[in-house]
């Protein structure tokens, strides 16, 4: 591996941008494919599949054996609302490998007793969210049911291009929310990126089941090809 290649991989990883190193096993030749260049790459299909799965592996192209080494950033989950659902969602997401943060300005909700071992920020979204460096490898859920907290949080999530954005609330609640967000300048495309009602439809009732539905929807968004993602 060239010194410059190693430095480039480390630079991209530090910036939380995915990168794939393609090594020709036959002759040791290597090239680095950054996320931004993925769409135009001749190996687009194979690279996209491996990146979505976060899985390295070998492929054979025109009789050559190529090793695709995938460096995907650790996905983050930001939960706005230290509610009952979040108490089930936070440990579930951690078991799936996500870095989890819970934000809620209401200190009675955001208490360490209710969220052992989870980073908690008892601040309003405008204070709590900017330092979290929310990015494309972040899933974002707003579950307070309180527009004063959820709306500004969702505005931030749409701006930061989270790979998943979900919000609690019925279709009616969401329609009202969409109206408010539009009034604040969010585009139709931005509104369409918000999953509400939140989670896959699995008939979830209890907070734990709703947490499963949310993580299932987030997983689908992360792993499935874009056209068929839920």
């Amino acid at each position, binding site marked *: *591996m*060239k*010194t410059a290649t*190693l*430095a480039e*991989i*480390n630079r991209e*990883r530090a910036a939380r941008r995915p990168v794939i190193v393609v*090594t020709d*096993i036959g002759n*040791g030749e290597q090239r680095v494919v950054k996320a931004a260049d993925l769409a135009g790459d001749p190996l687009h299909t194979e690279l996209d599949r491996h990146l979505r799965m976060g*899985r*390295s*592996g*070998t492929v054979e192209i025109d009789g050559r054996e190529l*090793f695709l*080494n*995938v460096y995907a950033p*650790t996905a983050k989950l930001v939960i706005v609302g230290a509610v009952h659902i979040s108490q089930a969602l936070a440990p579930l997401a*951690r078991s799936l*490998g996500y870095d989890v943060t819970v934000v809620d300005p209401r200190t009675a909700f955001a208490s360490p007793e209710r969220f052992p071992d989870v980073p908690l920020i008892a601040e309003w979204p405008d204070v709590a969210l900017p330092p979290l460096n929310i990015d494309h490898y972040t899933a974002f859920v707003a579950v307070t049911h309180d527009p004063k907290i959820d709306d500004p949080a969702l505005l931030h999530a749409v701006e930061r291009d989270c790979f998943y954005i979900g919000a609690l609330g019925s279709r009616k609640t969401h329609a009202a929310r969409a109206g408010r967000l539009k009034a604040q300048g969010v585009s139709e495309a931005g509104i369409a990126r918000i999953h509400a009602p939140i989670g896959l439809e699995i008939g979830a009732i209890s907070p734990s089941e709703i947490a499963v539905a949310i993580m299932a929807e987030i997983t689908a968004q992360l792993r499935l090809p874009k056209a068929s993602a839920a």
Partner: protein
Amino acid sequence: MLDRDDDILKAAEDWQKAGHGVAIATVIETWGSAPRPAGSSLVVNDEGTFLGSVSGGCVEGAVVTEALDVISSGVPKMLEFGVGDETAWTVGLSCGGTIRVFVEKVG
């Protein structure tokens, strides 16, 4: 978390900047029940110090020895470990899997 590597590539870069010879060994293929998935790697410097893991401890010793050789020769190597091949009685994977490890020098 369960599926996270330590930041060993950063260590490799730092070692090289400090003037060390460095090699990277990466699992490129697995068969059967291999302990570490493809993409797992370890980095070695010319003093034999290594970080990371390609097999959870079964064959690291042999990989480090080969890596020192790669550091001095500069020629990449493909290693294969598994029960059933001729190295099984010296080093092998007790779980019965087979792994292929690519070892390359940095620089």
